[in-house]
């Protein structure tokens, strides 16, 4: 397949692995931000090609993993209402809330539908004028423009029965939170290529400067990830801390300007709670007042939700790269992909699920 096979080439991977091995003189800890990158690293066994001492920690860039429990409970409460068609991307359906997940709501008779785009949800709203159609808007800057477009369209068409349950989060404030932690051990970042496709990478320069860390905008194919690691290690070894772009075939410094304009029009930056990490100021999006008629959180009064995380789950430490999944006491015992205690065990991009599958190789 053109434009894919080139980036999965065995010889190319060997070459980059050799180059990384040659320049690495000390142990380094690098965080890949995005869950898509974690997925590639695990799926292709990238870590098995790296020199010992070079550690990858898996960052908070899995939207499934960082969506707070209270928000999932809210989604479940809305989806359980009569007259509601609750739509979502597939992998949110299995994320456990306090007592059940959206698939369980479906099993109990709720109208929960998997869609591939918020615009599909919009179509469902047009086709079902007597029902209230809610889309679960989850994700980083990558998925935000399509969700903004759905709300913008609904508003324009006067589709009063469409609303967005908005749980968008932003990458730079998360990097800031990780680096500000007194126990941070991350020395370099692979920034999320697709987030930067939308937003560009201007916002990363102050972070690289302030915390003196290299940040390399990196793609998602195995050779992208290996090259991103190579560029980060080279900076670390040379004592540099710059923002570099590995993913030049998709990312421009200024990003996708029309998408950003749409985001500014529909959303405002707001404080957000991150599952496992806690509140981060100005770290997400909420709908602007102009579009509040499409804000599911305002439309559906589901009462106060007080969600309790399992006390056994150390997802927060894992999402910040402070601990590896197998260092958790519940890992593989009380917490498995079939019965997850926390979100990183649910998503195929979650660090715990990735380790669970990989770890079983060694019994």
């Amino acid at each position, binding site marked *: 397949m053109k434009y894919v096979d080139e980036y*999965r080439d065995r010889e190319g991977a060997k070459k980059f692995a050799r180059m990384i091995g040659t320049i690495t003189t000390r142990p380094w800890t690098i965080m890949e931000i995005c869950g898509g990158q974690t997925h590639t690293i695990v799926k*292709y*066994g990238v870590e*098995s*090609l790296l020199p010992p001492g070079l550690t990858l920690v898996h960052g908070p860039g899995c939207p499934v993993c960082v969506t707070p429990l209270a928000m999932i409970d809210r989604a479940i409460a809305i989806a359980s209402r009569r007259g509601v068609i609750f739509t979502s991307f*597939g992998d949110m359906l299995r994320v456990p809330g306090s007592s059940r997940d959206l698939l369980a709501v*479906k099993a109990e008779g709720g109208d929960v539908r998997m869609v591939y785009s918020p615009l599909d949800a919009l179509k469902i709203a047009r086709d079902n004028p007597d029902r209230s159609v809610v889309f679960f808007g989850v994700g*980083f800057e990558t*998925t935000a423009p399509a969700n903004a477009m759905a709300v913008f369209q609904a508003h324009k068409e006067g589709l009063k029965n469409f609303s967005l349950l908005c749980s968008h989060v932003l990458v730079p404030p998360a990097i800031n939170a990780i680096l500000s932690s007194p126990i941070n051990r991350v020395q370099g970042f692979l920034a999320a290529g697709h987030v930067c496709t939308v937003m560009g990478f201007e916002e990363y320069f102050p972070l690289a400067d302030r915390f003196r860390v290299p940040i390399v905008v990196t793609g998602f194919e195995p050779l992208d990830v290996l090259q991103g690691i190579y560029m980060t290690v080279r900076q670390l070894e040379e004592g540099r801390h710059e923002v570099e772009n590995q993913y030049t075939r998709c990312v421009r410094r200024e990003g996708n300007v029309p998408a950003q304009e749409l985001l500014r029009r529909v959303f405002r930056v707001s404080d957000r709670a991150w599952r496992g990490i806690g509140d981060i100021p100005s770290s997400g999006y909420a709908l602007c007042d102009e579009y509040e008629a499409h804000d599911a959180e305002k439309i559906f009064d589901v009462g106060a939700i007080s969600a309790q995380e399992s006390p056994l789950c150390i997802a927060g430490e894992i999402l910040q790269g402070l601990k590896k999944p197998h260092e958790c006491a519940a890992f593989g015992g009380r917490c498995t992909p079939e*019965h997850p205690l926390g979100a990183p065990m649910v998503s195929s991009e979650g660090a715990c699920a990735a380790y669970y599958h990989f770890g079983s190789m060694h019994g």
Partner: protein
Amino acid sequence: MDNVQQGDIASGPACPIPMTEYSTVTLAHGGGGKLTQQLIQRMFVPQFDNEMLGRLHDGAVFTAGGARLAFSTDSYVIKPIFFPGGNIGELAVNGTVNDLAMCGAKPLYLSSAFIIEEGFPMDDLWKIVLGMQAAAKNAGVGLVTGDTKVVDRGKGDGIFITTSGIGIVEPGAAIDPRNARAGDMIIVNGPIAVHGIAIMSVREGLSFDTEIRSDTAPLNSLVEVILKAGADVHVLRDPTRGGVASVVNEIAQSSRKGILLDEAALPLSEEVRGACEILGFDPLYVANEGKVMAFVAPGAAEKVLRAMRAHPLGKDSVIIGEVVEEHPGVAVMKSLIGGARVVDMLSGEQLPRIC
């Protein structure tokens, strides 16, 4: 939980439900992955406790009246019932024919039970029946008994079909999931993941430049060729629901051997690869309806491969991996870039990813 289960079963008929994690059945319990396996192993197998069922093969093999017979059953609840490359009726015939073939048997007779929802178009039923007729003829089996029930509108989803079948085990065939041995080569008869993507493309309204047609086909004549080519065929499996990944896991666990797949050797069509990329699906977990995986002794592999390639359903046959002594019970895949990863069973339905 195990203690509770055993204790109460011993004390009499008032068994507790042997699963505490789920109070209702979810779709994932029927997905062919880990939850399906748990349901079968906790809910069904211990209660009907017998050696044939315990083998968890595609069908049961037993001796009756001096003949070695294979017996299998399968239900079809597919949506949509008409899809590119076939319909639910063809699938129902081919599926049971294939389950029998995977026992090393020559399929003879099938039964078919229909559960039809009130209001179901007669025209559609006719098309399904014609599909079954053609499939039965193609496979050389007789559809010799059946049953029909109609349920109230809204109490079924159009039509459900259950087929059962019996076949006679080919002399000398010793096909058993426990028989995989280190060194065995794993052969598959062509591109994988086609059926699942064909269904998905219609169900989800995805349109691709080229239509992806289901690979549904009766595999009994191909299996006959495989068995005649070399006596050293140890395991046969059709990677239907749950895909190739589920088969290699089941065989690794049954045989207590390791399985090593080579990602670079996996046969995939460009269309299916493209669809999987878009949906974030792993083709290893996507269903097939016309594929067989043969675990063959290394000495016989070339001969079997040649014979398979001479058959119309096997012309694209390739070796995709081998059975190894290392990591018993676990399937591992050498990735395209040379790394290694575990190929686990799916925990539930495969769900398209967010981004």
